[in-house]
């Protein structure tokens, strides 16, 4: 749960900084339809690495497509 709330907070923080309208973060929301661009995702992943201490993309076999996939990618590594 802590991982999910950290991720949600960072999505909101980066959306605000980048002045982008963030869609409601449901698990089936497609990442590319959430209102953020690649640079915003790059910022989120960089700050998550600082906050959580890991970057699950280095061993990920597939790229996350939905917000739910994204959260699961990070939760799987935390577990």
């Amino acid at each position, binding site marked *: 749960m802590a991982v999910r709330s950290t991720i949600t907070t960072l999505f909101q923080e980066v959306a605000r900084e980048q002045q982008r309208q963030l869609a409601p973060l449901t698990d089936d929301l*497609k990442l590319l339809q959430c209102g953020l661009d*690649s640079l915003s995702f790059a910022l989120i*992943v960089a700050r998550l690495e600082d906050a959580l201490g890991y970057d699950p993309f280095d061993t990920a*076999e597939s790229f996350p497509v939905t917000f739910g996939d994204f959260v699961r990618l990070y939760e799987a590594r935390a577990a």
Partner: protein
Amino acid sequence: MALWDSVVGAAAARGGALIGPARAVPLASLARASCLGGRLEALQGRSVVVAIRDQLTAAIALLELDGVAKRMVLCTPDLSPEHLPHVARSAQADTWLGDASSGAPPAAAGLDFAVEADSEPVPLPHPADRTAYQLRTEWVLLTSGTTGAPKLVAHTASSLTSAFAGQRAEEGGAPVWSTFYDIRRYGGLQIYLRALLAGSLMLSSAGEATSDFLARAAAAGVTHISGTPSHWRKALMSGAAERFSPAYVRLSGEIADQGILDALRAAFPRAVVAHAFASTEAGVGFEVRDGQAGFPAALAGRTDGGVELDVSRGTLRIRSPGNASAYLGAGAPMLKDTEGFVDLGDRLELRDGRYYFVGRSGGIINVGGLKVHPEEVEAVINSHPLVRMSLVRSRRNPITGAVVAADVVLTDGAGAGREQTADERIRREILEACRATLAAHKVPALIRFVPALEMSASGKLVRPSA
């Protein structure tokens, strides 16, 4: 021979088209239609700033202008109007070529002759007679410079096509190419020229969603497609790659890591996944098709095929017919070293018979295919009254390849009697200053306050090599 003669003449037999988001233009139709029409004659021998906004119109105009203009400067769609005077002056341009949406040239650019291209090719009263148009036109590309003003890099049609001119056509019919790049950038221009000489090209469209672009590519029967690793990561994240099955997937413009190569092989099992090393200045160095990151050590020192790669100084140096000829403009640096090699400072490391890229010696940061010069960002950070100095560096990132990170030394030393809230306030002010003056990809993703930065004996900041 001008490009038009090799392309349009052959297109009657070979086919081929330029496919835009809203319309397609068969190459053969350009024998009897033109976006420049009767204005072509007046453009003869001129140095032209090509500021056309629409990519399809620009694609046609470049084809028509080769052989006619003395020089054409390919303005990228994101070129800031404030840099136009510098661009026009450096290129010694005398002419502006725009379209309906580009507006008039700024007065400061000093371009007193302006021509507007038609957005659609307009039928000509007679088939085009281009026998008089045989100039060796210079193609000038813009690439980002240390100060924010672009650098001008001079090529010709022959240097730009040297990586594939004379290559045998691939089996399985004429390829339909596409690229995530705009064709006014080197990576996109390569694909445009390949497609002109053999096949068709589907153009990207600014602002189009990745999933819409890939759906359009699937519908247009695109077989060969290129982009940066960052473009491809975004494509995989869109989920739309599942409905698209190209034969050839190319990565260039950034270091292709093993992760993205493996992900693309899994997503496109029937495609050849190739990564190429190319730059605006050096041209195409090589293409690797074995699915592995880096490149085989055997490629270094080879001299066949006209491209020589030299690694003896720890960076990749390239000497080839694909090299640009020069940087243009007063006080422009030399493009080639005394041995005729182009060295952009891409540092290499040898491991198990392969060379891997480990960053730029000049410290240039590549954020999703867009270059960032650390000095440019440091200048903004250092303008904060409480900042003594800063070091901007690259931080690896799985989405854009890298992001910008900054180490900052404050005038009162880090943490010395300062509250946490003061740090936060300074961080916020630095970021606000960066956002106000720099493009979004140049704004630091992370700012760290440090007590000191390492200096070299000569008093320069020690920059990390990766």
